[in-house]
């Protein structure tokens, strides 16, 4: 059976089980797709899988809108890992979520240059191995001065759409530092280098799971994930921490007591 048909079946089973009020997935719209909350009894014929949207971010909003609701979601590897990091920071309650686990295809993996294109368990799809981002390797060959020059040139194109921040499932601060005049002078284009972009980059440490949503949303085509991938690798080397690997791992920047009482 086709992959999408298998997902529809799995979603239908989950909806019929009565465990959730709805399942968050994608719906076909014209040539594209859009996030949609499917309910029991809904036709699932237009449920689709690609292009993906940041579903964990939407799930967070829906769970917050109604503290009693339980929801399902079709989750790729990055989306499951994203939810895990969000759960650690009390953004989502895993007990209120049921996932349909989906492994990405080789084409989908290549589009995201994804190093980890499968979830912790697989309901639908076949596991394909991850790939390395060629841009990251290229970047590593640059000297420090060349790197500064490279990012200066990239960030000069930034039009401060805040899209990278707004799509990011891991950006959930009530007040965003990027909107604090103390750190980033408001109204200026391109935003001041390097504060705007480095603040965001540091905020991804220990959280960014490489879902690619920011880079795909960037109207300036800035290879943001190169920066975040390097930071992720550093965090792993220094602290042995891999975002999204498990609910139990303690984030490197968390204070232990806070973290424990939070659960």
């Amino acid at each position, binding site marked *: 059976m086709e992959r999408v048909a298998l997902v529809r079946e799995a979603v239908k089973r989950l909806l019929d089980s009565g465990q959730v009020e709805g399942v968050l997935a994608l719906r076909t719209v014209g040539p594209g797709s859009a996030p949609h909350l499917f309910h029991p009894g809904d036709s699932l014929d237009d449920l689709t899988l690609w292009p993906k949207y940041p579903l964990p971010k939407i799930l967070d909003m829906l769970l917050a809108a109604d503290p009693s609701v339980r929801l399902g979601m079709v989750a790729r590897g990055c989306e499951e890992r994203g939810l895990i990091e969000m759960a650690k920071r009390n953004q989502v309650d895993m007990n209120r979520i049921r996932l349909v686990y989906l492994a990405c295809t080789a084409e989908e993996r290549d589009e995201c240059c994804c190093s980890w294109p499968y979830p912790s368990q697989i309901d639908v799809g076949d596991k394909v191995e991850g790939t390395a981002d060629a841009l990251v390797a290229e970047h590593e060959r640059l000297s420090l001065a060349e790197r500064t020059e490279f990012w200066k040139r990239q960030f*000069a*194109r930034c*039009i*401060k759409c805040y899209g990278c921040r707004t799509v990011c499932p891991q950006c959930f601060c009530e007040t965003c530092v990027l909107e604090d005049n103390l750190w980033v002078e*408001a109204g200026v*284009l391109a935003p001041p280098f390097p504060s705007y972009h480095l603040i965001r980059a540091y905020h991804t440490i220990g959280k960014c799971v490489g879902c690619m949503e920011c880079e795909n949303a960037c109207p*300036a085509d800035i290879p943001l994930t190169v920066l975040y991938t390097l930071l992720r690798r550093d965090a792993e080397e220094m602290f042995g921490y891999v975002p999204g690997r498990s609910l139990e791992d303690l984030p490197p920047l968390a204070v232990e007591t806070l973290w424990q009482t939070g659960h």
Partner: protein
Amino acid sequence: MTNSIPEFDETDCFLITGSNTTEAHPLVATHVLRAQRRGAKVIVVDPRRTQIARLADLYLRQRPGTDVAWLNGLMHVIIQEGMYDAEFVESRTEGFEELKAAVAEYTPERVEAITGIPAADLVTAARIYAQAGRAAILYTMGITQHTTGVDNVLSCANLAMLTGHIGRPGTGVNPLRGQNNVQGACDMGALPNVYPGYQPVTSEAVQAKFQEAWGYAPPLRAGLTVTEMTDAAYHGAVKALYIMAENPMVSDPDLNHVRAALERCDFLVVQDIFPTETAEFADVVLPGVSFAEKEGTFTNTERRIQRVRQAIPPLGDARPDWQIICGLAQRMVGMQPTREGRFAGWEYCSPAEIMAEAAALTPSYGGVTYERLEQGSLQWPVPTPDHPGTPYLHKDRFTRGLGRFTAVAYKEPAELPDEEYPFLLTTGRMMFHYHTGSMTRRSEKLEREVPEGYVEISPEDAGRLGLGKSARVRVISRRGTIETRAWITRRVPPGTVFIPFHFAEAAANLLTNPALDPIAKIPEYKVAAVRLERVA
């Protein structure tokens, strides 16, 4: 636009002028800069060193209002160095000899004296543009909002035809329209001189066509433009104004004059979603709805017709604007003798039915239906139901057959700085607000970013006036005075100041000069003379 935005991915050279592209048309800038990374050259000619100017391969800073001079200068160099497309000029155009004669005197040195653009840079720009495989001109209001606006546009067209950079993908003369549906409003005949589809009101055949369709069509005489309407209201010739979702009390030049005109109107109707500055003068206010509460279509700057879809029901008692007009029309029709015509009725069930009628009367929209738009957008002309639409115009011939060169001479702006008003004021848009601000200034995030107006002033001038960072400053022109905040920046050269027009409380248009281009009737928003005073 003659061409389409996605085609820019194939363009080799962009000549961008009078366009703050990354701020006013951000997603066009995306395509331009993508092409640049692929090797395309970007030339920006603008008095302000905007973000796109800083990102350009070549940036030329002209004195505001001198566009005909540098455009003629480019053509002078191109003809001198034999870089024009002789075959295109021969087979597709007429009037070349006149053009050649007219640009002969615009030597780079003379152009430098008029515009301030270094002669060598002008020559470099001419070579890059002329020798590119596919070159596109992009411009916006920086070209049109002058008393010489039409001359400026004609000069851009001359340049494109001279080099054969038109009628192929990725080339063309591409005015980027500022507002989301300004193209569509023009297409639909919201203009005083044409019916839908640019069918002239002065043509008897066209009049007969609409007489037959609607049961009545007015005499063969063009009506008033927006600026003329306010004038006529001021002088008493216009007694009633009906304003749908426009805000002349912020957007029009010389606001003190607009205010007096609105006050003198016998009857003013404002249809809008917010209590705008203009609604303060209204006798009747009719609540329309936002784009989230109605169905319809918009036509973008590249003639692309796209759907607007209803997401939520109208708020409160508000009504979709099309229903308001229908309700009004039905009442007025009832007060008149019956009119016979295929489309004389006003009983529409949906915007899809309105589009069906508009399409039947608008040749370039002839093949547009909501069913087709479900499958994606369409670019007009789409004359028939099986026509695929037209991504770029003038492929094998111009609308009038041969393209005509129009020789144009440089003329000075209507008002230039003098002793009393020593600064040149230019106005425009910025990233975080839109037009008169009635929507963006009610958007928390956008308003946080830039909560008040400002005047951009060079560090040199700020120093002379004793202005520190964010100092309060009074800006005075022959028509009015505003108080605002100084933004000291190298974006503007010494002698020039810039004010965005989105802020009603420090409205740039209290200062602007209502002098019009004689043909397009567009006001000279880009050049006025002002004086600055520090507020103690």
